[in-house]
């Protein structure tokens, strides 16, 4: 018996994990602390874990003086909710069709979905398509539609869930009772597939919340449609952007009182906040989803 050896492993294991946990957490704490530091102190001392002069001016500014930040926040919220809902609807419906036994043309449909996982045209052709053919540039749809609305990988995950976890007998019984195809899907298959739907909704929702790419490429003029990520992206390059876009009532005094350095960090904190708040609730589903998709991801 090696009880000593086991004890040593437990102790070393905990030490290693505590270090890694700190490494994961401390950078987030640093920006939180910076956002709570007085601007002049921040310029003098730089970013520190313990603020020398504590101040909530950055947050006050965000929530009172500037509607730029609040609007971007609102756009991120609307985008995430609408995008996720549409995505879940079209993904599950397509997956339901592909999971159907004896559907004529199923092989072809499967291939068409699957091929998109192997090959794509890349940025330039996609950009040309959305700009020249669909005129998506500088519209809200540019945030929602390109690349994020549905992906073949999620379709495949839901499809295999339908195929393995929804028993044929139940579906047939529903038909015998006179249910239509859509009723069967909506009343019977969807409720049974709740776990996988929660998982893909989570993945899609986080992808929407975190996306900065679409806005960066397609919103060249309509900066009023910027999501919170786009705003942050623009702000790290110049703090002026906030001043230019700010539709503040009393422009001059608002800019003069703007805590320029800490405000960036405050917006970053506000940008992570929703994720951190829902994280404890979604964490289990998220882990399950990674495990499910992991081997093929």
């Amino acid at each position: 018996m090696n009880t000593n050896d086991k004890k040593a492993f437990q102790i070393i294991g905990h030490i290693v994990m505590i270090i890694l946990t700190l490494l994961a957490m401390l950078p987030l704490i640093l920006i939180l602390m910076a956002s709570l530091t007085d601007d002049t102190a921040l310029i003098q001392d730089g970013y520190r874990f313990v603020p020398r002069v504590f101040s909530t001016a950055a947050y006050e500014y965000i929530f009172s003086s500037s509607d730029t930040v609040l609007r971007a926040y609102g756009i991120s919220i609307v985008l995430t909710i609408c995008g996720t809902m549409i995505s879940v609807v079209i993904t599950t419906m397509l997956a339901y069709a592909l999971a159907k036994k004896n559907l004529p043309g199923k092989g072809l449909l499967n291939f068409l979905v699957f091929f998109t996982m192997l090959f794509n045209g890349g940025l330039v052709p996609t950009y040309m398509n959305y700009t020249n053919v669909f005129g998506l540039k500088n519209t809200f749809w540019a945030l929602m539609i390109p690349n994020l609305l549905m992906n073949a990988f999620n379709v495949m995950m839901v499809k295999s869930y339908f195929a393995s976890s929804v028993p044929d007998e139940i579906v047939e019984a529903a038909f015998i009772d006179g249910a239509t195809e859509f009723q069967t899907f909506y009343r019977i298959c969807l409720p049974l597939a709740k776990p996988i739907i929660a998982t893909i909704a989570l993945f899609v929702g986080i992808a929407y919340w975190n996306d900065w790419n679409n806005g960066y490429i397609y919103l060249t003029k309509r900066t009023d449609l910027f999501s919170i990520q786009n705003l942050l992206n623009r702000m790290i390059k110049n703090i002026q952007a906030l001043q230019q876009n700010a539709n503040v009532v009393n422009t001059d005094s608002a800019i003069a009182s703007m805590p320029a350095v800490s405000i960036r960090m405050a917006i970053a904190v506000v940008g992570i906040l929703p994720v951190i708040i829902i994280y404890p609730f979604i964490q289990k589903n998220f882990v399950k989803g990674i495990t499910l998709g992991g081997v093929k991801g």
Partner: protein
Amino acid sequence: MKKKNKTLRMMIRNIPIYVMALPGLIYLFINNYMPLPGLVLAFKNYNARKGIWGSPWAGLSNFTYLFATSDAYVITRNTILYNLAFIVINTVLSIAVAIILSELKNKIKNFYQSVILLPHLISAVIISYIVFAFLSTESGFINNTMRRLFNAEPIAWYAEKKYWPFILVFVSAWKSVGYQCIIYLATLLGFDRSYYEAADLDGATVWQQIRLITLPLLRPTIIMLTMMAVGRIFYSDFGLFYQVPQNSGALFPVTNTIDTYVYRGLLEAGNISMSAAAGFYQSIVGFILVLGANLLVRKFDRDSALF
């Protein structure tokens, strides 16, 4: 004739199903299939006024031009070498963390796991803010701390390319290890405990158990995930390479990858033909690598292959 009729009847009966599939299929058509003809841009001299089809043909000149510069070499090298470094380092760390988490007895391990997964949920833009808070020349945490403790000269992190390979590898690990270890952990927890009980009775140390039981059992998963990653070696984590170095020109030799090159060509330099050529190169080579990796995975374990 009879069979054909039967198929037709089945199709008619399944019309509601086709209707349900339609929105998703239309989206894939728009998002994934309609851009494909645009790949010909790589062989054209793009002129915005004339459009894709009206622009004059350029033959292979976009490619000869691309490969005549050192750009093609640099972006290919960076993409592949960084991906290799990420694959090796993140895999080793993920396995180590997964093994530790699987052996720890205390319930607090769930907390550890949750926290180290968190960085994976943070957007590339915000990660670039975090990195900036550490590396900013005037006010960054690192420069300030070094100055206070050792009176050290500040380092211009965003202008010195020698540090960036390490910074990028570190950030990648920070972001991905918590995520990747979940897959290994799920595999580990599925192992038959009786091997370990028997090893315990024989007096094997923990290290011996890891080396002689855990790692061999984990081998198929490691090989498979690695092969999958190798199949994607021509695609880089765009947010990491574009956002984290903050588009600093001095760093391009060590931060420019195929994805960032295509992006800059399209959006900043306005060199669309060159960008299209590099994108075409990535699509084709990437496709071949994905196919190749899948054939290998298929040989190795049919159920785990994509097709």
